[in-house]
């Protein structure tokens, strides 16, 4: 199956490297970063292009734009891994629409388009008979979408609880373990490369809320928006609060929670028992689903990382290859 890969940040590089390294029956025929593009129907030489990018700051021909690749390259599935714009979803939404118009499958790690325009994009994909998959948007390597779609098929999902932001979880883990202040733990997270220069999205709970919106819409199809989430961050927590929780055998974690029956859609720091399955350390993510038949299921794994996120994207690609593409 032929792949056009849009975006060559950490995730895009991981995808390109893993597709090149592993014999998965996937061929990259189109590649674009923010400044250039390259295409070849017979497959691109990825190591050379990545080396070129490292040396010159762009991977291909600067006269070829991302939209050129999407509209002209020969491919079956578009892998869209450009940075998230949570406000407009652009330019990713336009990229995805352009590929859908050509009846190409979509695999994305980009939360913006899925949180903002899932319904519209889904309708367009259905109309054109192609797949729109976004496993990598939520909880990194954890196969939550595959679990919901296949493993838990036929179950009614009653509620979900998740630790969906590795940055917050790292900060809270360090505050609890070492008695650090929020500011100290944040600084440490920055040094470790776990927090952005502007950590607002993460620490205010917005990133977790966007993921909650994606999950809720995927599971229940209610078309909820970011504004519907009751959102409280971790930036006002004190080391004393974590100590007071610790004295009771508990700790504090940022929990994203959706319970449709109670009309709850919330991201907030919560007191939680230390031995609770959702209490994971460091940058790990965790998700508990409550269902009518399977009862509680908890998944734990890495929520970010280049190769970890590539795992989710490749899982989606191979699913599409299995399901739709019988040529290879």
């Amino acid at each position, binding site marked *: 199956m032929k792949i056009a890969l849009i975006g060559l940040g950490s995730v895009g590089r991981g995808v390109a490297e893993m597709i090149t390294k592993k014999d998965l029956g996937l061929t990259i025929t189109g590649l674009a970063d923010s400044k250039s593009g390259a295409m070849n129907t017979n497959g691109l030489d990825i190591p050379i292009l990545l080396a070129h990018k490292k040396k010159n700051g762009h991977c291909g021909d600067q006269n070829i734009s991302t939209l050129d690749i999407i509209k002209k390259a020969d491919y079956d599935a578009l892998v869209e891994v450009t940075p998230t714009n949570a406000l407009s979803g652009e330019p990713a939404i336009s990229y995805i629409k352009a590929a859908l118009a050509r009846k190409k499958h979509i695999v994305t790690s980009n939360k913006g388009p899925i949180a903002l325009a899932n319904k519209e994009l889904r309708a367009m994909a259905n109309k054109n008979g192609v797949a729109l998959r976004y496993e990598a948007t939520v909880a990194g390597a954890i196969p939550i979408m595959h679990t919901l779609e296949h493993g838990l098929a036929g179950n009614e999902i009653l509620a979900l609880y998740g630790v969906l932001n590795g940055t917050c979880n790292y900060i809270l883990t360090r505050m609890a373990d070492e008695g650090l202040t929020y500011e100290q733990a944040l600084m440490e997270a920055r040094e470790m490369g776990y927090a952005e220069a502007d950590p607002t999205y993460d620490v205010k709970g917005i990133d977790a809320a966007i993921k909650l919106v994606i999950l809720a819409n995927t599971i229940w199809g209610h078309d909820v928006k970011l504004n519907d989430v009751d959102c409280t961050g971790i930036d*006002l927590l004190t080391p004393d*609060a974590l100590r007071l929780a610790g004295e009771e055998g508990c700790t504090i974690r940022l929990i994203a929670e959706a319970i449709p029956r109670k009309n709850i859609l919330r991201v907030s720091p*919560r007191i939680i028992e230390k031995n609770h399955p959702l209490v994971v350390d460091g940058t790990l993510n965790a998700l508990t689903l409550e269902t009518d038949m399977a009862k509680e299921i908890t998944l734990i794994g890495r929520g970010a990382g280049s190769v970890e996120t590539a795992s989710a994207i490749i899982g989606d690609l191979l699913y599409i290859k299995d399901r739709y593409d019988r040529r290879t």
Partner: protein
Amino acid sequence: MQISMKLEMKDSPGQLVAALKPISDVGGNIIAVIHQREPGSDHGTLDVQIVLELPEGRLEKLVVLLKEQGVHIQRIGEQRLLYKRTVILIGHLMHTDLSDTVDQIDSTGFAEVSELAMSMPAVKERSSSRLTIKSVTKEDMESALAILRRVSQQKSLLLIEPLEESA
């Protein structure tokens, strides 16, 4: 005051109503009645546990009235509040009148702050406290937490609630 009683009475029609009547006669308020029919009991008796709110000084009168009804009082105790939740409040707790915050729960009559642990760093910094709230029923606990949410919002306090999975 809130008390609980375990009563034993004849298992015949009208007995339960007759046993509960003295409670209202002395100005009490029934909060919960828990029926316990012992399996295989052949004494022809009925065990009932009741939780009630009683004005101070009326308990003795009630006991006399119950005995007159032929009700045997097996046990009387201060009400054990069944539901317990721990929350944490962060913010300018003293400046926003912590005792008022606590009183908003205590004054409900159905829930109370049974424990309070607190840390106060420097004067101008935000302090943190852990409150243990107790209530008789789960619904009362929900109501108490709703009050606390409202008060926290009014006073710009950060309320951290426990995660309760119950879908």
